[in-house]
């Protein structure tokens, strides 16, 4: 157990944010010691600032006293990015939760980091605008975390990831300086792209306090279709055939049988659990006949590639049910085994069939249940290794399988993470992916921005406490 922050420093924090916004009780420290992964690491203090000025003052204090800070919004991440390591102070940004502006002329929204992703989407859609990035956690993830981890979602195939929408940021740097970069303009190539640097920096370079996001006009029509397959490989091959035909659906999602079984238990959507795999398509556009024609082409190609059945959702309610089910997959997997190790590999789509085959082979060889689902259209897959952490023998197989999945992905020209970030979970494998030169440059960038190394220590870069050295029960820190 980490000792709570010493009273002198807690008192200084209280002077900045008010005593009720400094949490030090045993219970509070336990509650802020995790995210959506299985890591537990108790902070020494939780501080709940209300604005950028307070965050700047917290950063100044942290610099002066060499205190580590871990920025956190909703704590729904899947890489351990917001888990406070080594007694770091959790800097929670959920009180900064206002949509500051929806600019209907420039098509941007200015938001604070504690705004829930889905809430922003509803707010802009009410005005005929559209914020496409849709992580499956959109109901429970905040935009600060989305930017910090560069979140993706099902619509990335057509619309890209969070970074493609960040046009400006306000960031409190280590030491307390407040930096603003970018603006509401569409084009901006002045100097290095600092928006890109901070987006996906996982809290290691500063605390994000304001975000300007690009918006699009809301497509007038959006429809959903499914195609069931007796063979997983056929489903993967169909994805490539559709894209090669020049069609760009909003989303092409892949669910294997095990995935369908888990999700049908909690969000019954009539998924064909007897099939080996399902593809779930979304198509959107400004003209209904174009959307319908694309869906018809998709169905025809799926049949030609071996689909046993295709279906176009009858109405918005059926469509909503299917996407609700899709978004529930990750947590629903807990129904099969106590724990899961969720991966987030991303490969060029030409390698989709090879990747899918490799995951099945690795699962069989290590005698593990690895449901496979993901954003097949953009090559981003989530093999989830189901396990029981209390079984050390099984965990050795789990970690061996995880390593092999990474190795195959990288060998196929892919990468460790498509949208979850590296955090703690994948840091041991960073060099395997980046190579020595890129890793060394990233270290130099980190040292230049955060010379004291106090921003979210223990994340991204290889070091102790990663998954390979993962803590078996009995070794819990």
């Amino acid at each position, binding site marked *: 157990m980490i000792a709570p922050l010493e009273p002198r420093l807690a008192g200084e924090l209280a002077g900045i944010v008010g005593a009720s916004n400094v949490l030090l*009780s045993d219970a509070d420290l336990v509650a802020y010691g995790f995210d959506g992964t299985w890591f537990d690491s108790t902070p020494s203090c939780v501080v709940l600032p209300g604005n950028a000025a307070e965050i700047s003052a917290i950063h100044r204090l942290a610099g002066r006293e060499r205190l580590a800070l871990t920025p956190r919004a909703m704590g729904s991440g899947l890489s351990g990015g917001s888990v406070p390591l080594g007694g770091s102070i959790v800097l929670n940004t959920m009180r900064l939760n206002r949509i500051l502006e929806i600019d209907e002329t420039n098509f941007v929204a200015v938001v604070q980091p504690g705004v829930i992703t889905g809430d922003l989407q509803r707010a802009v859609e009410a005005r005929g605008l559209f914020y496409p990035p849709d992580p499956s956690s959109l109901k429970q993830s905040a935009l600060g975390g989305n930017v910090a981890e560069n979140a993706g979602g099902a619509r990335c195939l057509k619309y890209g990831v969070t970074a493609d929408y960040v046009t400006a940021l306000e960031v409190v740097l280590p030491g307390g300086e407040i930096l603003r970069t970018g603006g509401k303009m569409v084009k901006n190539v002045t100097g290095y792209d600092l928006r890109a640097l901070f987006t996906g920096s996982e809290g290691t370079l500063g605390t994000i306090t304001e975000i300007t996001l690009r918006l699009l006009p809301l497509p007038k029509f959006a429809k959903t279709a499914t195609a069931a397959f007796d063979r997983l490989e056929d489903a993967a091959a169909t994805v490539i055939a559709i894209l090669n035909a020049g069609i760009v659906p909003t989303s092409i999602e892949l669910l294997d049988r095990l995935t369908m079984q888990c999700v049908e238990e909690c969000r019954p959507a009539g998924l064909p659990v007897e099939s080996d795999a399902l593809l779930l398509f979304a198509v959107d556009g400004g003209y209904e006949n174009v959307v319908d024609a694309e869906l018809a082409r998709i169905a025809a190609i799926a049949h030609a590639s071996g689909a046993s059945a295709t279906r176009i959702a009858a109405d918005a309610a059926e469509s909503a049910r299917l996407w609700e089910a899709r978004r529930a997959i990750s947590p629903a997997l807990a129904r099969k085994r106590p724990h899961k190790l969720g991966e987030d590999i991303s490969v060029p789509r030409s390698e989709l069939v090879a990747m899918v085959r490799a995951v099945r082979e690795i699962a069989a060889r290590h005698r593990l249940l690895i449901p496979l689902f993901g954003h097949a259209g953009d090559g981003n897959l989530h093999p989830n290794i189901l396990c029981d952490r209390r079984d050390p023998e099984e965990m050795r197989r789990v970690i061996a399988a995880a390593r092999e999945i990474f190795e195959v992905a990288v060998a196929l020209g892919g990468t460790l993470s498509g949208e979850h970030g590296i955090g703690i979970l994948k840091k041991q494998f960073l060099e395997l992916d980046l190579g020595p030169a890129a890793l060394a440059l990233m270290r130099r960038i980190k040292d230049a921005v955060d010379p004291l190394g106090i921003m979210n220590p223990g994340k991204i870069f290889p070091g102790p406490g990663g998954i390979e050295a993962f803590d078996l029960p009995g070794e819990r820190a």
Partner: protein
Amino acid sequence: MNELAASNFSGADIPPASVYDQCVRCGLCLPSCPTYLETLVETSSPRGRIALIKAVDEGRLDLTSPGFMHQMSECLDCRACEAVCPSGVAYGRLIEPARTQIRRATAAATPPAQRLGRAFALDALFAHLWTMRAAARLLRFYQRSGLQRLVRASGILKLLGLAELEALAPNISPRFLAPQGQRWPAVTQPAKVRAFLHAGCVMQVAFAEVGEATVRVLQRAGCDVVAPRGQGCCGAIAVHAGEMDRGRALAKRNIVAFEASGADAYIVNAAGCGSALKEYGQLFAGDAAWAARAAAFSACVKDVTEFLDEIGIAPELGPLEATVTYQEPCHLAHAQRISAAPRRLLERIPGLLLREMEESSLCCGSAGVYNLTQPAMAQQLGRRKIEHVLAAQPQIVATANPGCALQLANGLREAGQQIAVKHVVELLDASYAAYDLALP
């Protein structure tokens, strides 16, 4: 610290690791949790509280640490988190035993006067409904004579630990619906179903008119309705307060009464009771002698709205020109997952316009005795609810649980609003009455 660290729970009723282990900490429950929405603090969220329970079980957090005790008490047990949880975490099965554990660990430190008051409340009143009725008659006198204001001001209720009870039955009906073996035949014979009416405890003394409406609507729907003696309180108050053994004693009497009645269905018009009655199977899971009987009993329990929606109601509905908004009781929407049935019933009523409010299924803050254990949070949630009700501009708020009805009525009165609060069956009953009135 390691797994061998002893659990800080002990004895019977330990929150099961198999339940909390199912939480993958995705955080989807947070935006559904009333106390999280009010505080934005993880500790006050379902995911946070599950982590606390796990930490206590793993010896990382003290059972009696102020933060843990506060969170176990601050939770409304509204179960909204359960309804949205994709992983299927049965949250109620964690919070109730956790409260039992705290209750046991702190029993010795509870002042004797409070223990006495509590034992009187839970044993004498809820165990023997004739004492509740007697007390209710006194209470009605107490409420109407001006004595109430005097006693409340005196602070004696707090001293005796009776403040909770005092608030539970604030407005006693002029007549009670005591179960005395009554039989009400179906309007059309032969009857489709024999329905056992759960008269309830608070319901029978404070909401007798709801019970009467329930009987009439069931009779019209083709049910012989019976109200056998021997039944009693469902035990929810005891179970939610962490008194699981008291809850089991009460449960056994209802099981026996139902078995002896020969009825096909056990009908409840209070969502909180229905939820507890449907969980008898779990309550007795570890008891070989009662597990099967309890599970069989629970399988026959139906909320009155669920039951009417299933068997179909009589079509002779007369017009009820009113704008109605429906407040979802937590223990109906979340614990029993019944959301569509009451709305379908309301929409059957000619002339009735159902207008949805925002956050209909977010707890109103009533939650049994919550008003007294967590007055500040209860008030915040009550205000939030009333704002949403007013925004919908209804003439009537429909609901299906006594706690919600009391909280809404109090809130509306405080806001100076003339909006009536009615149970769904009361509106159906009124609609039938309107039809009869129009008959030549």
